[in-house]
C-alpha cells in the first residue's frame, strides 16, 4: 500500500528506485572462547591490515575524485585504526579474556563511545561516529562479511538508512545511488552538502523510515518537496515520472535559452548572475558560461568532519583552485559561517540554548583572532591569483565591521612587511542578514564595498520564524512586505553609497522571486548552479518597468500569499514562452533550492 513520509528536502530532484537498506552498524556479533591468543591476535592483525588497505584505497580515490578536503575524514579514521591505546588494550584483552576479536572490538568500541557520549563537545561526538565507523570495518573483515558496502553497490538504488557515515558518503559509487532517504541529518550536514553538489536527490529527517520499508520496495524521493513515497501505485509513479521528465527537459531548454556571458533584462539593464558554491567540486567548467563569477563561496566545508583546524596552506590551496578555475571572474569568499559550538568543549561552557542568536560566524571569528587570521591570510594569498572579494557574515553593527576590517588590516600589514603579493584593491563586503544591519545600512554602506543579502537568515530574524519548526513554518514568507521593505532599504542605501547590492540567499534561486528582487533594486543574484539557466532565462524576458510595478504592489500588500501567487504565475508564463506545448510543464517551486 502506498505510504508517504515527510522529511526535510536537502537536495532537489526526483529519484525513483528500489530501496536499499544501508547496512548501518552491526549491533550483534558472535561471541566465543578462544584457545590460542596468538592465533587470534594474528587474525585481528589481518583484519586491521585489510581495513587499513581499504581506508588507504578510499583515501586515494576520494582525493582524486573529490579533493583533499573530503579525504581528510579518512585520514582521521586511519589515525583511529592505529591508535595505540586502542590497539594495546585490544591485545591485552585478547590475552587475558581469551575471547574472539569481534566480541572484544565491539566491547571496547562501546566503552569508548560511552566515554565520548558523556561529553557535550560536538567535536567529540563526531569522533564517536568515526570510532563506530572504523570498528565496523574491522568487524566486517573479521567476519568476512560480504554484504555490499554502499561504496561497492552495482545496481542503482535509493539508499535508506538512519544516517550515512561521512566516510561512506565520500566513497559511494555515485552511478548507483539514485537518491537518499535518511532518518537523521539536516540541510547543513556534510552529507547534504555532498548530495546537493553531486546532484543526488535527498530527503533527511525521516523518522524511522528504515523500520517501515523493506529492502527492495519501490521508493520515490522528491528532494524538492521533502517527501518520500513508499510502494507508490502505478498512477503515482507515472505522475512522478512525468514531473521528472519535465524537470529534465526544462533543464535542457533553459540551458539553451539562458544565453552566455553578461546577463541583461529585456530592456537592457545588466544584472549580474553568479553562482553559490559550497564544495570545490561545484566549480565545474560549465560554470564560467552560465555565471559571471562566484557570488558566494562558502568555506564551511573546510571545517566539517575533521579533528584539526585546516591549515593556512590547505585553505589557500582550496581558494586558489577556485580562483584559477574561474579564470578572471570574481570569487566572493565568505569567511567561516559556523557556530562556536564546532570548536568548543562543554567543559566549562554549556551548549548554547539558542545558537541562531549565539556565538557564531563573525562573532566567533572576532573572539578567536588567530583562527580568523589564518583564514584571512589564505584569502589574501589567493587574491594574488585573480579577482577575489571577501565577505563577512552576520554583521549586526558597525563596530563588528570595523573590528573585522582592523584584523584584516593587521594581516595586510604583515604581508606588506614580508613583501608577499596580494590584491590591494580586493573588495570587502558584508552579508545583510540581520534586521539591525538593514536599519543602519547607510552607515555600513559607507564602510564596505558591497552588500550581499542573505535572505534565509534575514527572513528568519525579521519574522521570528524557524522554518524547521512545522508549527510555524507557514509564517516563513519571503514575500512578506516587511521582508521586501528590508531588501528595498538595503538596496537603496547601497545605491546611495554607490556600491553593489546583491542577493545570495535562497530567494535568488527561486524564479518566482526574480522580478520582485529586481524591482526592489537588487542588481546581482547569486544562486545554486542548477538554478542559473532558469533564472537567467527569466531575467532576459522581463523588463525593469514590469518588475518595479510588481514590487511596488508587493510592498503595499496585506496578503503575501496573493503576491506570491501572482509572482509565480508571471514567472511560469514568462518561462513557458518557448516551451513545447506538448511537454508537461514542471512546477517552478519544485526547483526551489533547499536551505543552504
Amino acid at each position, binding site marked *: 500500500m502506498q505510504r508517504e513520509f515527510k522529511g526535510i528536502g536537502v537536495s532537489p530532484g526526483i529519484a525513483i528506485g528500489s530501496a536499499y537498506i544501508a547496512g548501518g552498524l552491526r549491533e550483534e556479533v558472535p561471541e566465543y572462547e578462544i584457545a590460542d591468543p596468538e592465533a587470534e591476535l594474528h587474525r585481528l592483525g589481518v583484519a586491521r591490515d585489510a581495513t587499513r588497505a581499504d581506508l588507504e584505497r578510499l583515501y586515494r580515490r576520494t582525493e582524486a575524485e573529490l579533493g583533499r578536503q573530503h579525504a581528510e575524514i579518512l585520514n*582521521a579514521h586511519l*589515525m*583511529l585504526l592505529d*591508535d*595505540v*591505546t*586502542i590497539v*594495546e588494550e585490544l591485545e591485552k584483552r585478547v590475552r587475558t579474556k581469551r575471547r574472539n576479536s569481534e566480541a572484544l572490538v565491539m566491547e571496547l568500541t562501546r566503552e*569508548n563511545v560511552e*566515554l*565520548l557520549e558523556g561529553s557535550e*563537545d560536538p*567535536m*567529540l561526538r*563526531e*569522533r564517536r561516529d568515526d*570510532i563506530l565507523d572504523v570498528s565496523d570495518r574491522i568487524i566486517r573483515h573479521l567476519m568476512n562479511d560480504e554484504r555490499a558496502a554502499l561504496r561497492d553497490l552495482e545496481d542503482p538504488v535509493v539508499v535508506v538508512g538512519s544516517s550515512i557515515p561521512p566516510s561512506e558518503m565520500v566513497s559511494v559509487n555515485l552511478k548507483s545511488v539514485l537518491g537518499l532517504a535518511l532518518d537523521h541529518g539536516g540541510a547543513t550536514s556534510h552529507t547534504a552538502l555532498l548530495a546537493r553538489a553531486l546532484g543526488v536527490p535527498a530527503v533527511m529527517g525521516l523518522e524511522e523510515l528504515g523500520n517501515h520499508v523493506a529492502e527492495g520496495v519501490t521508493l520515490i524521493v522528491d528532494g524538492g518537496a521533502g517527501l518520500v513515497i513508499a510502494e507508490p501505485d502505478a498512477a503515482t509513479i507515472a505522475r512522478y515520472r512525468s514531473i521528472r521528465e519535465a524537470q529534465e527537459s526544462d533543464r535542457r531548454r533553459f540551458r539553451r535559452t539562458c544565453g552566455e556571458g553578461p546577463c541583461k533584462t529585456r530592456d537592457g539593464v545588466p544584472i549580474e548572475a553568479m553562482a553559490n558554491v559550497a564544495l570545490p567540486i561545484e566549480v565545474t567548467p560549465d560554470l564560467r558560461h552560465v555565471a559571471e563569477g562566484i557570488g558566494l563561496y562558502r568555506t564551511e566545508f573546510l571545517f566539517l568532519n575533521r*579533528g*584539526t*583546524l585546516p591549515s593556512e596552506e590547505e585553505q589557500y590551496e582550496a581558494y586558489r583552485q577556485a580562483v584559477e578555475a574561474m579564470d578572471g571572474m570574481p570569487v566572493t569568499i565568505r569567511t567561516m559561517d559556523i557556530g562556536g559550538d564546532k*570548536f*568548543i*568543549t562543554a*567543559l*566549562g*561552557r554549556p551548549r548554547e540554548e539558542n545558537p541562531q542568536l549565539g556565538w557564531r560566524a563573525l562573532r566567533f571569528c572576532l573572539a*578567536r583572532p*588567530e*583562527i580568523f587570521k*589564518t583564514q584571512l591570510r589564505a584569502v589574501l594569498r589567493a587574491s594574488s591569483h585573480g579577482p577575489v572579494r571577501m565577505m563577512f557574515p552576520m554583521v549586526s553593527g558597525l563596530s563588528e565591521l570595523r573590528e573585522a576590517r582592523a584584523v584584516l588590516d593587521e594581516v595586510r600589514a604583515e604581508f606588506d612587511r614580508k613583501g608577499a603579493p596580494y590584491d590591494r584593491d580586493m573588495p570587502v563586503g558584508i552579508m545583510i542578514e540581520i534586521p539591525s544591519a538593514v536599519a543602519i545600512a547607510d552607515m555600513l554602506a559607507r564602510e564596505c564595498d558591497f552588500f550581499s543579502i542573505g535572505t534565509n537568515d534575514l527572513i528568519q530574524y525579521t519574522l521570528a520564524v524557524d522554518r524547521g519548526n512545522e508549527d510555524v513554518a507557514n509564517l516563513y514568507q519571503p514575500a512578506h512586505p516587511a521582508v521586501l521593505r528590508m531588501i528595498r532599504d538595503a538596496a537603496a542605501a547601497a545605491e546611495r553609497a554607490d556600491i553593489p547590492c546583491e542577493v545570495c540567499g535562497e530567494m535568488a534561486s527561486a524564479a518566482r522571486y526574480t522580478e520582485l528582487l529586481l524591482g526592489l533594486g537588487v542588481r546581482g543574484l547569486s544562486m545554486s548552479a542548477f538554478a542559473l539557466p532558469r533564472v537567467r532565462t527569466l531575467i532576459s524576458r522581463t523588463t525593469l518597468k514590469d518588475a518595479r510595478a510588481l514590487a511596488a504592489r508587493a510592498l503595499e500588500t496585506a496578503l503575501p500569499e496573493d503576491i506570491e501567487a501572482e509572482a509565480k504565475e508571471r514567472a511560469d508564463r514568462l518561462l513557458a514562452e518557448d516551451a513545447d506545448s506538448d511537454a508537461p510543464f514542471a512546477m517552478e517551486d519544485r526547483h526551489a533550492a533547499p536551505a543552504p
Partner: protein
Amino acid sequence: MRLEESMCVVNRLGVHARPAAAIVQTVLKFQSEVHILHAGSRVNAKSIMGLLTLAATCGTELTVVCEGDDSEAAMAAIKALFASGFGED
C-alpha cells in the same frame, strides 16, 4: 634520553578533539615514546583516545615524558604546541 617536563594547558577550551589530534600529529613525527601523566593516569601521546580520557581543562598541569634518541626535539615541539594554546587562543 629520558626527559620529563611539566606543562600547563593554556587554551581556554582545554584538550578536546582538535588539540588531541594536533598532539598526536606532532608526536608521530618523532621516534621517541611520549607519555602524558595526569592525576594518576598515564597515556600514550600518540593516542587520541588516550588524550581525550585525560579530560584536561584549561589550567591543568600535565607531566610530559619523552624517551628516545630525539626526545629533546620532541619535547621542544610539544612545548611549543602547548604554549601556542594549540593554535586556538
